[in-house]
């Protein structure tokens, strides 16, 4: 849709990542740990790509256009660091076949990411759609390349 390219694309990317984490959780529930390790690895790739799309492409141009580097993007960057830390711990738990730890961390990660996504989708992406409307198609194309 015209003028909402960024929010639509990145929101769909959020859903894709959520789906991958949920699939990994399902495999751990079924005690298919080898497949779960693979699924987690797929999730991490998708999640890291998503964070990089925002940090390397969206945020810099957003900050340039809005003239702010200490606003929403700074908070989002901090939250990305927490997401990365949780993902690292989650990987350790799955490698150690520690089911209890895994579910504790996946629950924490999932809820944290959901509230993070909510902020991005309801505020940041809408602001991005508005401030970057003229170059949104190019930005989305660039983000898809990651």
């Amino acid at each position, binding site marked *: 849709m015209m003028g909402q390219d960024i929010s639509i694309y990145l929101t769909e990317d959020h859903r894709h990542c959520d789906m991958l984490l949920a699939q990994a959780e399902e495999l751990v529930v079924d005690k298919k740990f080898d497949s779960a390790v693979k699924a987690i690895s797929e999730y991490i790739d998708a999640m890291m790509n998503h964070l990089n799309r925002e940090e390397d492409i969206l945020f810099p141009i957003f900050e340039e256009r809005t003239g702010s580097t200490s606003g*929403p993007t700074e908070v989002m960057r901090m939250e990305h660091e927490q997401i990365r830390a949780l993902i690292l711990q989650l990987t350790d738990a799955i490698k150690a076949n520690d089911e209890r730890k895994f579910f504790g961390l996946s*629950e*924490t990660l999932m*809820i*944290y990411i959901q509230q993070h996504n*909510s902020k991005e989708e309801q*505020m940041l992406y809408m*602001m991005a759609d508005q401030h970057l409307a003229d170059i949104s198609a190019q930005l989305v194309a660039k983000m898809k390349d990651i």
Partner: protein
Amino acid sequence: MNTSGLSLDQGPNISVPFRFFFTAPIFFLLFALALFFITDDTLLSRFDAQTVGLVHLFTLGVLSMIMIGALFQMLPVLMGVTVGGNKNLVTAIFIIFIIGIVSFSIGLFLQVKSTLLVGTVALFIAFFLFLLHISKDVFLADRRGKSVLLMQFSIAWLWIVLFLGLYLSLVRIGIIDTVFYEQLANVHIVIALFGWTFALIIGVSFTVVPMFYVTPEYTPGCRKTMPYILFTTIVSFIVTNFFFPNLNFISELIASQAVVMYAYQTIKRLKKRRRPIADVTVSYWKSAIFFLLISLLFWWLGYIKELFYTLSFVSFAFGFLGSLLQGMLYKIIPFLVWFHLSATGNFNIPNIKEVIDEEDMWVQFWLYQIFVFLFLISFQITTIKIIAASILVISSLSLLKNFLLGWGVYKSFRS
């Protein structure tokens, strides 16, 4: 786009919502203890002073206490409204609110007018300060969020509940007089239940159900029509209640539509949740929806036997609202403990599942469910009321213990 007021902040200090959350089990306990002293006949008479006192001990001490705490936490995240930053104001609201609930309930329970007056004034001040603090930002908030319209709706109706409550209380004390006491009390109850409480619960559900359980979103049709259905319910009830009491079924039919739509959408979402893990909070949600539908069934059975109206209220207030809010707290409290600990930059902290013991939450869940069932039965077999009250005592203490253990985890990692 007007982004003023939009906040990507982390919300208020942890003590702001927690003081409200941790006080709720204490009022649950007081409610349970009060049940021991109230007679069976009194409980069936909804305008009896003791019944009104007992009901408010629960609706204000437990339900509103949790909802106000949750609003302080959620308004910044869901609506970009910065509230709760003024700790002195929050503390004042909290203390005056407690004084209000205790005095109001004691005043009604023991029928001491001066105590009731103190309670009435304190409650009015507490709600007034709270509403004044949040209203401007709430009503000016960007409306695109999933929960915003219903949250605005809920706050708007709370203003009316407040003034109606004040008026009714002053009538009861004898300061003013009215011939419409019963009609106004009915309006107060309907707006409090459907305007303030149910609307807020539904609005928050639109965000937290998909967020906590990774479910599909509530349909846009449901999200868009719900505020209008609830509005029509309330307005049609006010009109028929005053002018055409025989046509009250019209508002009941409209309310039924809201109940069924919300119940259906929520259950469908919980069934379709992408995460396979079923924890105690999912069970709390399911039992809440079960009791919501039971309360609807009881309401219509009220046309056959009046007792069912009382059972409908009990199912709605204790089975639906009580279950749902406790379930929500078992998600929110561990998350906030983790969230505030992680914000210190320390990643070597307990995860959400390590804050409150899962087994302890299950025990408390079953205690509460048994209480609701026994409480419902006690209206038919009165001797059971004491057993129900005893179980609620244990459930409330268990709830408080679980919350305090969560707080203990937070404190031990902060120090």
